[in-house]
């Protein structure tokens, strides 16, 4: 197994460095590292943006309706 050296910043503890390292590895393993990438196909990137905006609007409407029920 490969060894890694960790250099601690001021105020950083071994535990916090370990937790950050675990978080970074988990992010990489679960594919989250790709979440800021873009499709090379502009039409599919546009589709992704459309679907994200659609859901954001949908969920905002849903929250408003829920709050209306609670207020009445």
């Amino acid at each position: 197994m490969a060894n890694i050296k960790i250099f601690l910043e001021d105020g950083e503890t071994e535990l916090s460095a370990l937790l950050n390292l675990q978080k970074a590895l988990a992010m990489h393993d679960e594919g989250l590292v790709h979440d800021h990438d873009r499709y090379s196909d502009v039409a599919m990137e546009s589709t992704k943006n459309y679907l994200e905006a659609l859901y954001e609007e949908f969920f905002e409407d849903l929250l408003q309706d829920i709050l209306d029920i609670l207020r009445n």
Partner: protein
Amino acid sequence: MIISKDTLERIKQLIELKYTGLLLKLLNPEVLSSQQKKDLLDSNVSLSNYYDIIRYLYTYNFNYDIDDPTKPNSFKEIIVDAISNRTPNGDVHTSAISYLEQSLNTAIEKLKQVVINNISSIFLEANEEYRRGILQDLDRSETLESVFKEKFINQITKKLRETSKEVNRDWQRVVVTELTNLIGIAHTDKIIMDNADTDLDTVFVYRKPMSDACRWCKEFYLTSSDTPKLYPITELIGNGSNYGKKNSEWLPVVGATHPWSRTSPPIQLKPGFKVNLDGTQSFMGLKDWLDYVKNNL
């Protein structure tokens, strides 16, 4: 003010109905159950206003090569283009579209359940806080009660807003994963149709991972010298899907390799061509081609 069982039930029904409406907006009404259709009709929602988005996106990805300069440039152009009678016919396409619709349907159902659970937890917590408030002030006046109610609603609003950030992120993951799956499946179907008269074990493909690819994409789709790895298309198809599998069980596939994956769809390596570091192809001739393929599998 306390959130009663009836209020919670009304809110759950609202969420059910809204998510069914979302399904209808995106998919063909055939994916809905009879009860879901009835609920929408009872709420005066027309079943004829839907995008059939999976069919359109599949059609677009099937009809155009990834480097075709004439292809649509936006979502709107995809819809306009796909409406103009270019949906491919046949069982291969019908079953692919149906599978992709089911996959998105399942993902949306799961999201809905997460939202219901999150909101139920927020209400449970709010009720508990309300109960504690009563215990601290048993003889509250009406004015104080209305102030308390407003504070209570504001707290719930804040918590629901916090949820929306997480929920939108879940949706982004669903969108990217489902789109990558669709792109991969549609392009694979195209390669199969283009090679209908060829032994598919001799049709070789590769996928181009993103420049900062994760270890899985690198391991699956790049050789040790970072050129795209070649696969007989039958191997990628035979590996099925990585959905619902632990990451230690993931395999190279035609669809989404993992959540958030944006790896390119399978691209066919033309006979006599080799693939370069950037994923483009250049002609090398047929003489040593099979040896080249064997060395890059």
